[in-house]
C-alpha cells in the first residue's frame, strides 16, 4: 500500500463545504490502497470545478478541454497502456459537452476509470441546469425550470454494457474509496457516478437531500444481472441506490491494436527496413 501522503495535500479553489473535498480524499485513499505510485497514474480532466481535482494531488495530469477529457484519455492510454488512466470531471463536462465521447468510450471498452462528480448543476459557470438536473429545476438560465428529462448516466452505461458501473456519494467516503478501488481493479471501462452537493448553486439536492435518500446496495443485488442492474439504475426518489450496480467482462480495447504489448509508443523506434518495404510496395 502506497502511503496516502505520497499523493500530497494542496490548497484548493473550491467553496468551503463542497462535496469535492471528500471525493478527493476518497480518490487518494483508493490510489493508496491500490498500491499505485503517483508516477504510474495519469489523471485526465476537462473543465469545471470537479476537473480541477487532479491539480490537488500528486500524479501525472492532463487537464484538457471542456467535454474532451475522455478522448484525450483514450489517446494517452493507447500511447502508453501501462499508465493507469483516470478521467475525473463533472456531470456537465462528461455527460453534457462530452456525451458522444462517453458513448464511444464505453462501446470501445477503453480501459479508463471515469469518475464523475455529479452535483446536478453547473457550478463554475454559476448555476445553470446540467444534464442530470431534475425536470423543473429552476435557475437563472431556466427561470421556468429545466424542460428536459434528466440524463441517466448509469442506465446508459449499463445499456451499453460498460464493464463496471457504480454510484457513490461524497457523504460516504469509506464506500466511495472502496468503489473507486474496485473500479481500478476491474479490467476495462469503469464509470463511477459520484453524487456531491453544490453548496453554492444547488439548493434542492443538498447534502442532507442526498444523505436522506442514498442507501448502500446489499448482497441481495447481483451486479452481473443486467436487468436487475438496469432496474436499480432507474430507482430514484425517496431512495436512491449506491454501490456497484453492474459488472461484466468484455475484451479490452487496447489489446486489439497490433502494438498492444509492445510497450509505450514513445519508446519504439521507426523500423526502417519495414518502412522501406512498405514504400517499395507502391511500385
Amino acid at each position, binding site marked *: 500500500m502506497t502511503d496516502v501522503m505520497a499523493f500530497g495535500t494542496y490548497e484548493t479553489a473550491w467553496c468551503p463545504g463542497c462535496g469535492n473535498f471528500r471525493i478527493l480524499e476518497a480518490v487518494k485513499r483508493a490510489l493508496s490502497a491500490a498500491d499505485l505510485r*503517483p*508516477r*504510474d497514474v*495519469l489523471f*485526465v480532466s476537462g*473543465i469545471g470545478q470537479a476537473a*480541477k481535482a487532479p*491539480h490537488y494531488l*500528486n*500524479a*501525472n*495530469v*492532463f*487537464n*484538457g*478541454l471542456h*467535454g*474532451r477529457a*475522455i*478522448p*484525450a*484519455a*483514450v*489517446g*494517452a*492510454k*493507447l*500511447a*502508453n497502456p*501501462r*499508465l493507469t488512466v483516470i478521467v475525473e470531471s463533472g456531470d456537465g463536462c462528461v455527460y453534457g459537452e462530452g456525451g*458522444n*465521447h462517453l*458513448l*464511444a468510450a464505453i462501446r470501445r471498452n477503453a480501459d479508463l476509470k471515469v469518475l464523475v462528480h455529479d452535483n446536478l448543476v453547473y457550478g463554475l459557470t454559476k448555476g445553470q441546469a446540467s444534464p442530470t438536473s431534475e425536470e423543473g429545476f429552476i435557475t437563472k438560465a431556466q427561470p421556468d425550470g429545466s424542460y428536459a428529462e434528466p440524463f441517466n448516466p448509469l442506465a446508459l452505461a449499463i445499456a451499453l454494457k460498460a464493464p463496471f458501473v457504480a454510484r457513490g456519494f461524497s457523504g460516504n467516503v469509506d464506500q466511495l474509496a472502496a468503489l473507486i478501488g474496485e473500479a481500478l481493479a476491474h479490467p476495462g471501462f469503469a464509470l463511477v457516478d459520484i453524487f456531491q452537493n453544490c453548496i453554492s448553486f444547488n439548493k434542492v439536492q443538498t447534502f442532507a437531500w442526498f444523505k436522506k435518500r442514498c442507501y448502500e446496495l446489499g448482497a441481495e443485488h447481483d451486479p452481473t444481472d443486467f436487468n436487475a442492474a438496469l432496474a436499480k439504475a432507474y430507482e430514484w426518489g425517496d431512495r436512491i441506490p449506491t454501490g456497484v450496480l453492474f459488472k461484466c467482462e468484455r475484451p479490452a480495447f487496447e489489446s486489439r*491494436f*497490433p*502494438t498492444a504489448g*509492445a510497450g*509505450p*509508443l*514513445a*519508446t*519504439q*523506434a*521507426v*523500423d*526502417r527496413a*519495414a*518502412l*522501406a*518495404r*512498405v*514504400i*517499395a510496395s*507502391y*511500385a
Partner: protein
Amino acid sequence: MPKPEVVILVGGEAGQGLVTVGTLLSKAFVRAGYDVCVTQGYQSRIRGGHNTYELRAAVHDIAAPADEVDFLVALDETTLAADGPALRAGGVAIAAEDAEAPAATLRVPYKTLCPPRYANVAAAGVVGFLTGLPQETLVGVVEDAFHKKPDEAAANRDALAAAYAWAAANGAPFVRPLPAATPRPPRVMLNGNVAIALGAASAGAKFCAFYPMTPATGVPLTLAAHARTLGLVVEQAEDEMAAVNMACGASFAGAPSLVATAGGGFALMVEGVSLAAMTETPLVVVVGQRPAPATGLPTRTEQGDLDFVLHAGHGEFPRAVFAPGTVEDCFHLTRKAFELAARYQGPTFVLTDQWLADSERAVVLFDVDNLLPLAAYLPPASYPTPYRRYEITADGVSPRLLPGLGDELVVADSDEHTEDGHLTEDLGVRKAMVEKRLRKWEGLRAAIVPPAYYGLDGAENVLVCWGSTGGAAREAAAALTAAGTAVAVLHFTQVYPLDPPAFLPRLVKALRVIGVEGNAGGQFTGLLRREAGFHVDKFITRYDGLPMTPAYIRAALERLIAEEVS
C-alpha cells in the same frame, strides 16, 4: 516526331472500375519510365454519377494536369457527351461496341474479349497498345496486384492479352505511341495522401486519430493499412473533436501524433489546436482543402482554407504551415512538420487539397536509410530539478519528459499554468508564459523553407503561387517564356511564417506580379501584404472546383497583359 506526352481520360460511373483502369495504366507508365500526373474527378456518391481519372504521362517531368485529351476511354455514354469536347483534334475516343458514339470512335467488342467484369482491364489493354506500352508491363502490374489471388491474376492477364491482340488487328489508325522513355532510377507511384502518410511514418509518427472526410481520408487509411507492419495506432474517432483530443492525449503520453481532415472537420478540431498550443503538445494537422463554405463541393479541389488555417485557434501562439507543391513535398514537408512540432512543442500544419491528395505521381524511391526519424524516447540522464514541464527558458522550449516513463510527474494544463503545470490566475505568471510561448517563434522563423524561384532573374512577370498550383504555374511560365514573354514563378511551400527579405527583392524588381491561387479572394496575396508589405493587384484565381492547369494560367495571363495594353 511523336509527341512526348499523352493525356488519357477514363470516364464512367462510380463503381465501374475506372480507377482500376487508371491506376493500372499509371503504374505501367511509371514502370516503363515515364513521368505521370493524375487528376481524379469524382462525385459525392457511391455508385453512378460521372467520374473521371485523367492520366497525363510524359517523357519529361510534369507536375500539372492538362486540358486537352488524346485518348478518351468512355466506360459509359455520359463520358462521350461530357468529356468529348476535351478531346483534342486527332484524339481518339474508345467506347464499347454497342455505345451511342460519334463515328470516329474506336469501338471495342469487350463482350467478345473477356467476361463483363474485366471490360475495364481490357480497356486498359487497348490504350496500352495504342500508346505503345509493352503488354508485359501491364501484365506485371496486375500480377503484382493479385499475387495472392492467382485466379484473379490469370483473368486479368487474359483480358489484357485479348485486348492487345484485338487492338493490334483493329486499332492501327489510332496508334499514337509515346517516344521511348529515358532510364530513370527506381520509382514508386504515390498520391499526396499516401506520401503524407509515409512521410509521417518515416518521421516517427505512431498515432493517428481521424473521422473520415474527403479528401483527407487517404492519409489515415494508408497508415491503417500499414499499422501492423510499422507499429502504429490508427483509430477512427467518434467525431473530429475526439480525433484531435485523442491525438493531443497520445502526444502528451509521447506518441508523435497526427490528425487529417478537410476544412469542415478542421473547423471542429480548432479548439484542439489551441489546446496543443497551450499544453505545448506536439501535433501535426493535415488539412486537405475542398471547396467550401460548409459542405461545399465535397469531392472537388480549392485553395480556400489558407486564411482559416493561418488563424485557426483562439489566442496567440506560434505555428508553422506547410503547403506541399508536389507529392515529394507531401512526404518531406510532413516530415518537417513532425520535426518542428516536436522541437517547438506545438501544432504544425500540412495544407493540401483534393487535387494533390488524389494525384498519383511517379516518385523516386526515398532513401529511407538516410532519413532521420524523431528519436525514440529515452528518459534523459539529467534535467533541471525540481522538474517543471513549463520551465521558462530563453528559447521558450521547456524540457519535455513523458508521464509514466520516469519518476517525475508531468502536469499539463489548458488553463494558464505555472511552470510546474498547475493552473494559475497569477497575472504575472500569465504574462511570463505568453512571452515564453511566443519566444518559440524565433526558432520557427529560423527554420523557414524559403519560396523557390523558377525562371530568369529579372523576368518582367512573376507569378506568385503556393502549394499545389506550383506545377501548373511553372509549366505555364516556361511556355510563355519560350513564346517570348518572360515569366518567372515564385512558389511557396511554406506559407507561414514568411521571411520577406528572402523573396521581396524578386517581387520589387518585377514589372508585373500576379497572384495565382485556387480561390476567389487571393488569400495568399493578402498574407503577403500583411507580412511583407507588398501589394499584389493582379490575380489569376480559380474556384470552380477544378485544379489550375498550365493552359488556364497562360490564357489568363495573356488576357491580363492584353487588358493592360488596350
